[in-house]
């Protein structure tokens, strides 16, 4: 191919801009759809993954949950819920203190905490008529370190027993007006006196993570797990959290924990999940989404390609005399083929480039309209936007696909052009 042919191809495309534009519309729409949806799905994926990786890839979550129960039946669960993106409310707690004690001493466990949670009545005076319901969490002293909670006033729990409580920032404000005012005061949970040991720093809604959504932490109260069992008159927790000492150690801890619990549980009433599993579930889901997208794109690009072929066939017919002339002045068949293929490739490439730009704009504006439903949504007004992520690889593939379309759907008209009999072509009216 030489420069003259390229120049002539470009000219013939721009000679009839309306027709060229309509011709490449299918390609433009196909590529734009793929680019925008890919961008959005990548954006969503990276948002979800970064939300999860805010905390720890070393996290292992043991839940009172039969792993074979369908997800839909899991009480109120799903991303955006509680622990590690899943909540297990409505499930009877099955994890005992003994379980916790044996799990926390497994080798390779760096930090651990059980977590029981219950909505309990809280008052400022004993026996008051008007009580407010707060979510009370029973946790270990290591819980704050595991979930990046810091006290803005007072201190975090120093013992797993004793009637001490740490308040979320909103809970402190509601009860005492400010964090400082709350420290050292007494509150009554289920009519049992607890001394406020500290108040947590305000968690922004973006701080999601494996332990309690940040936004919700603000309205929660934390007490030692032993106090929690006494208070709620139960013997088991819904969840036990373990942090392995290293990412590489996660699998060993999971295996050991499984064996330990199997030994003490007669039936399979618990499940062990890791953040790594959650990530792989998400990537499976987005992977399926991507596959579906590719299918849709393939169909629209096929239709676009047929449009290109149709127009190229028309163009060959219209330019029969020109083809005859070119053959007369010395064009070989392959020169004619390359001329028409150059034209169709240029058309599809143009469509691809416009599609990429359009797709990017679409992804960008749709991303701004769609509120994120990722973990850590604390409430109204905390919705974040999905930032479309379009990687160079996607763009490269889109461009390569458009070039390939030009080649595939341009070759038949081009070969037809090259096979025209020069003498007949010259006299074509």
């Amino acid at each position: 191919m030489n420069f003259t042919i390229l120049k002539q191809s470009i000219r013939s495309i721009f000679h009839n801009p309306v027709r060229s534009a309509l011709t490449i519309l299918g390609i433009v729409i196909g590529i734009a759809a793929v680019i925008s949806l890919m961008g959005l799905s990548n954006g969503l994926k990276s948002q979800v993954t970064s939300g999860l990786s805010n905390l720890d890839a070393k996290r292992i979550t043991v839940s009172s949950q039969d792993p074979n129960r369908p997800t839909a039946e899991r009480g109120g669960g799903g991303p955006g819920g509680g622990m590690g993106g899943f909540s297990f409310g409505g499930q009877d707690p099955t994890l005992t203190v003994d379980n916790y004690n044996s799990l926390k001493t497994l080798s390779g466990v760096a930090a651990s905490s059980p977590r029981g949670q219950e909505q309990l009545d809280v008052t400022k005076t004993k026996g008051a008529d008007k009580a407010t319901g707060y979510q009370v969490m029973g946790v270990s002293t290591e819980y704050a370190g595991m979930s990046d909670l810091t006290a803005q006033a007072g201190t975090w729990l120093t013992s797993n027993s004793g009637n001490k409580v740490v308040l979320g920032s909103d809970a402190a404000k509601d009860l005492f007006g400010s964090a400082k005012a709350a420290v050292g005061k007494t509150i009554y949970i289920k009519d049992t006196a607890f001394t406020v040991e500290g108040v947590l720093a305000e968690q922004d809604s973006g701080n999601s993570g494996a332990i309690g959504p940040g936004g919700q932490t603000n309205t929660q109260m934390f007490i030692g797990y032993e106090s929690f069992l006494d208070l709620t008159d139960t013997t088991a927790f819904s969840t036990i959290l373990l942090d392995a000492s290293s990412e590489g150690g996660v699998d060993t801890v999971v295996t050991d924990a499984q064996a330990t619990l199997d030994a003490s549980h007669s039936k399979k009433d618990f499940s062990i999940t890791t953040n790594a599993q959650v990530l792989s579930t998400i990537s499976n889901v987005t992977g399926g989404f991507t596959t579906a997208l590719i299918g849709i794109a393939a169909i629209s690009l096929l239709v676009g390609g047929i449009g290109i072929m149709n127009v190229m066939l028309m163009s060959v017919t219209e330019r029969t005399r020109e083809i005859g002339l070119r053959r007369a002045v010395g064009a070989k068949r392959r020169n004619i083929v390359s001329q028409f293929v150059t034209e169709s490739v240029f058309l599809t490439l143009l469509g691809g480039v416009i599609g990429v730009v359009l797709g990017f704009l679409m992804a960008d504006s749709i991303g701004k309209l769609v509120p994120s439903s990722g973990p850590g949504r604390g409430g109204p007004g905390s919705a974040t936007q999905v930032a479309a992520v379009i990687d160079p690889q996607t763009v490269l593939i889109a461009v390569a696909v458009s070039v390939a379309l030009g080649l595939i759907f341009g070759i038949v008209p081009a070969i037809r052009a090259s096979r025209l009999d020069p003498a007949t072509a010259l006299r074509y009216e």
Partner: protein
Amino acid sequence: MSVIQLQGVSRTYKSSGGVKTPALTDVDLEINAGEFVSIIGSSGSGKSTLMNVIGLLDRGFEGSYQLSGVDVKKLNDNQVSDLRNQTIGFVFQQFHLMRRASVLENVLLPTAYRKIPDARSRALDLIDRIGLAEHVDHRSNQLSGGQMQRVAIARAILTQPDFILADEPTGNLDESTATEIMAILNELHSAGSTILLITHEADIAKHAERTIRLRDGKVEAAA
């Protein structure tokens, strides 16, 4: 030295129904370098077929055709394309310019398929000689018929072909323009070009040194 040598050339067209129609029958023809020869015949006499055969646009003939000493029957399609590019300068009744291309680009068209040294300066020089220097960058569809045919002649001689094959070059032109075009061809002939002119007009044919008359696909008389 003969540029074109046809011996016993026949061309028969087959219709889809299998009916054979002879267009040329047993044509012998020899044209030497530097000659100006016209082939005259009425419509249906076979002159277009002869032009296609001589111009290497139709190779479905029987007999032998030596072009500048090369037996064209032995060539493949690519070699024939090269031979057309190098040895023949076509001038058509319909001009066959690329409408959207400039005068210069039209004259340079053969260089798209073969590099010619100093093609651009040669093309500009030729355009100057045909009196279109001011129109170099004009699109060819902005030109008059006579101007278009002059551009076509410049395109035909850019490659310095062995001969110019002019098929009714004045057929679409008025009389005075036709005279101009014939003057250019005469001038080229005086400068040494070999010209084969195909026409149905006796007035045009007589510009040539030699006239070959075709009738019903046969050479009737060589004058």
